[in-house]
């Protein structure tokens, strides 16, 4: 049996202290990624710090209108929270489009942000994978890459999509990640949290070793905004997005006065599309506008051997979502 040290933490400070700067340590929240990958022998933590006893499972409205979500709030609890359903429909919908009921009941907000890629070459433990074994190469680029591989933000070293639905909604909403480190707390803008693979695909996020996500603070909802998440996939449930869109718009009559657009299933990180947003703002809603705007998101897209269809599919996810939202 592969042995590891196990510790239970009761506060973020305690968790961070137990972790130290040990690169072979891991925090255990819902376990839906970590335990899976440990069983597959893809992750081999020497020390596991269980943070299920850390008191981070509440959601609070801040005075400035933002919503502060504890890292241990489960995906189910977050999706069903009245404030989220009311003010951030896109987030609730994205959460409920992910995984299965059983997984959502275990999975946490912090864990969802930290989930690892679903690239089968990462998960098989033997193929070339620069995330698992830096410098070994990327088997996916010339391999099977139809479902969980990206067309945006890829590099010659990695093309795996970020698998989260929740994060796509958060990217559209705008958020701040609060982290506890050995030296205290700091904040990371959500858009800066996940990193592009570039030359260092093993570096997936902006956390330093030993830092722990304690909260995600959602930007205040756009006054009068409406939002929705649209996820496209082969089967109707329990599959990662082939392409998805998280859209928030505010309308004045038929004019779009504000727009936020993010995409899942197509990018190596939760993919905000500011160029699409800029093309929409101040314009009269029409399918032609949406079609033209959606194209902008994919101007720099790269098609790989099996996933070129994601370029039009991603545009469809944006256009349909905008069409439905602006028609209401």
């Amino acid at each position, binding site marked *: *049996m*592969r042995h590891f040290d196990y510790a239970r933490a009761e506060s973020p400070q305690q968790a961070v202290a137990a972790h130290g700067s040990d690169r072979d340590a891991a925090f255990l929240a819902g376990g839906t990624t970590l335990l899976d990958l440990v069983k597959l*022998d893809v992750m081999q933590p020497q020390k596991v710090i269980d943070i299920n006893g850390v008191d981070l499972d509440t959601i609070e409205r801040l005075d400035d209108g933002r919503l502060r979500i504890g890292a241990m709030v489960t995906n189910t609890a977050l999706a069903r929270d009245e404030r989220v359903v009311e003010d951030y429909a896109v987030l609730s919908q994205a959460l409920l489009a992910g995984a299965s009921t059983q997984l959502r009941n275990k999975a946490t907000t912090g864990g969802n942000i930290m989930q690892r890629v*679903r690239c*089968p*070459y990462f998960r*098989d433990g*033997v*193929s070339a994978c620069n995330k698992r074994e830096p410098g070994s190469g990327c*088997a996916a*680029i*010339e*391999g*099977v890459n*139809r*479902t*969980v591989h990206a067309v945006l933000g890829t590099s010659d070293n990695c093309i795996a999509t970020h698998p989260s639905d929740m994060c796509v909604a958060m990217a559209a909403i705008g958020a701040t990640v609060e982290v506890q480190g050995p030296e205290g707390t700091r904040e990371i803008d959500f858009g800066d949290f996940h990193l592009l693979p570039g030359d260092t695909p093993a570096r997936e996020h902006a956390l330093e070793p030993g830092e722990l996500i304690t909260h995600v603070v959602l930007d205040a909802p756009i006054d009068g905004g409406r939002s929705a998440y*649209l996820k*496209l996939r*082969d*089967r*109707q*449930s*329990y*599959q*990662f997005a*082939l392409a998805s869109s998280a859209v928030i718009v505010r309308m004045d009559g038929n004019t779009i006065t504000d727009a936020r657009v993010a995409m899942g299933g197509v990018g190596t990180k939760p993919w905000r599309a500011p160029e699409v947003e800029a093309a929409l703002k101040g314009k009269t809603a029409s399918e032609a506008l949406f079609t033209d705007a959606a194209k902008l998101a994919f101007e720099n*897209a*790269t*098609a*790989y*051997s099996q996933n*070129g*269809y994601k*370029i*039009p*599919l991603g545009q*469809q*996810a944006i*256009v*349909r979502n905008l*069409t439905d939202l602006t028609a209401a």
Partner: protein
Amino acid sequence: MSDTDTKEPIIGAGVPRIDGPDKLAGRANYAADNLPPNMAYGYGVFSTIAKGKVTRIKVDEAKRMPGVIDIFHHGHFPSLYRTPSSFVQGNKVEETRLPFEDERVYYEGQFVALVVADSFENARAAARHVEVEYAPESAVANLAQGLEDNGTQAGGGHARGDAASAFDSADTTIDVTYHTPVETHNPMEMHASVAYWDAQGNLTIYDASQGVVVERNALSKIFAIAPERITVHAPYIGSGFGSKLWTWPHAIATAAVSRELGRPVQLVVPRQQMFTTTGHRPETRQRMRLATDGNGKLVSLRHEAINTTSFTDQYVETCGSVTKSLYSCPDLTVSHATTQVNRGTPTSMRAPGAAPGLFALESAIDEMALAAGVDPVQFRLDNYAERDESQDLDFSSNHIVEATKQAAERFGWHERNPQIGSMREGREIVGYGMAACNWEALKRPCDARVSLRADGTAFASCATQDIGTGTYTIVAQAVSDVTGIPVDRITVKLGDSSYPDGPISGGSWATATTLPAIAGAARNALDELKRYATGSNGIFAEASADDLSVADGALRYDGKQASFAEVLDAARYGSADGEAHTEAADSKYSYRSFGAHFVEVRWDPGISHLRVSRVVSAIDVGKVINETTARNQVEGAVVMGVGMGLFEATEYDERNGRPVNNDYAEYVVPVHADQPEIDVILLDYPDLAFNEYGARGIGEIGITGLAAAIGNAVHHATGKRIRELPITLDKLMDDVPQAQSA
């Protein structure tokens, strides 16, 4: 049938599964649930190359790890014998090469070592520290490369008339090629074996098996001991779909190392290796050439199928098995061939041959009907065979015309506008498609035993299996039918090779094979009971056996009634027992099952979303024994057919032969949300030429033709003819950007 029966007949009734409560309560033990004392755990080491040789296995480090008992590989493994793998002798296996027989690697995911330790976790941890060095060789990645590199081996066929000449002189012809991918069974229950040997050298094995008798016989050959010294248990199977029909290397290896170590060993095949070393439905390429005369009658039909097989064994996917006899056509050729690739040996998967074969045939018939300008339903009605022209025999019972018409009516086929893409509802384009379905009716030899017991219960046993389909329940129904004992007082035992020899649970033949033997055994038990009743101590000593009648678990004579228990008590016997043997089906008729699927699909081009929204299936399988489990079989097969049509394909990395989507997240099968509205019509015409119940079996027919009906509906909706399964959304999208050459 009991003599005075005014109640609803038990045969045909929707009796709930008698094994349901045990399964729900967790009392049903599956193979890996068996934990005999002192059991050790095995875990495999699997090849990471598709072809070559193992040049070195370093086990020293792994052997020193905690709990490790031994590590087996081709240089350290007991010498075994091959089984002749004869279907007729009942000792067939699919992969005839023995585990660890030599240093050769024929496919990725082949066992190259087996670690045995005191716990599952220790075995797995050590397996990951076994270092294997290889001399890889250039492998054959897929069907196309197999054809190019090695060509084909013949796999049989059928010919009548001169199909080529008829084709050349016909009015309207099509020449199209279909392709189906490797599909993997993916039963929920893992393949698993628990084996132990007693001091006398007798082997007991709990295995996830669809055929305990054949496994016993195969192991008898492999270990060169008498079959009587081997007992195979498989009381419950977490489904198999064909992958558990024949014994695979893991079961053989488990039994072998258990004998070496002198203690029980359990081995569970990981999900990833259930894609490599326990069979799959092979890749097929099928060329279809059809021709009609000016009246839309088929005049020539050629179905040439090639499937992939392994380098160790030839497995023929008989794609043209239905093509021979479904349609009337004087000039017809069916041919099967295989080509070797570096994948594990394929095996039967639900409706082997017919499932991929009818995708090609029933898609091609749709294409032919359109080319001939005839409605696809009418085209079939015009061309269905009235007798089996391949065998020159009448069908025993064939209601395909009625099935097609009933399903068309229920579905609303007359509302179909044949114009492509013409039926719209909101954003969705609705497509209607249909296909025939067909499966052979088979019946194997069978033995069974029934005991009527002094406590008023009955006991029935047969070494067949219930693979989740309801066999336990229908056996109880048959005993109840003969004896009048209610189902809840009948104990049924299956899945144990020490019971009277029963059939493998495959080919949709378990019902037709088992029930006549059970009924015969029950009647023989009743005859025995009547002899007890009329013997010198008998309760009706004055009567002769022929004067007694049977009703509701009692014997009647001259206005008097005595329960079976009273009869046995009076005679001071514990039970009245009967055995029976029934033979395989005769060859007086062509015995087949028939049906038709009608499918509605909805295509939303704005988001490239395709779904199957509605299915109506009319199925003619002879007498239905249990309305609930029969309907469930067809519904389940339809759902599996939706998976075949839209989602399923085992994707191999062509560089190393590794199945890439080898888990439940990435190998996409339908979830509940994908299930269409399903309406099953069971025609229920007893086929009494086939057996006394008139039942032909229902496990497989429901998946045949379904993928074609989907494809035909997709064509109606989109105008696109997808000849390569699965029909994924990217195949229906226009202007898909291609990769720049890397």
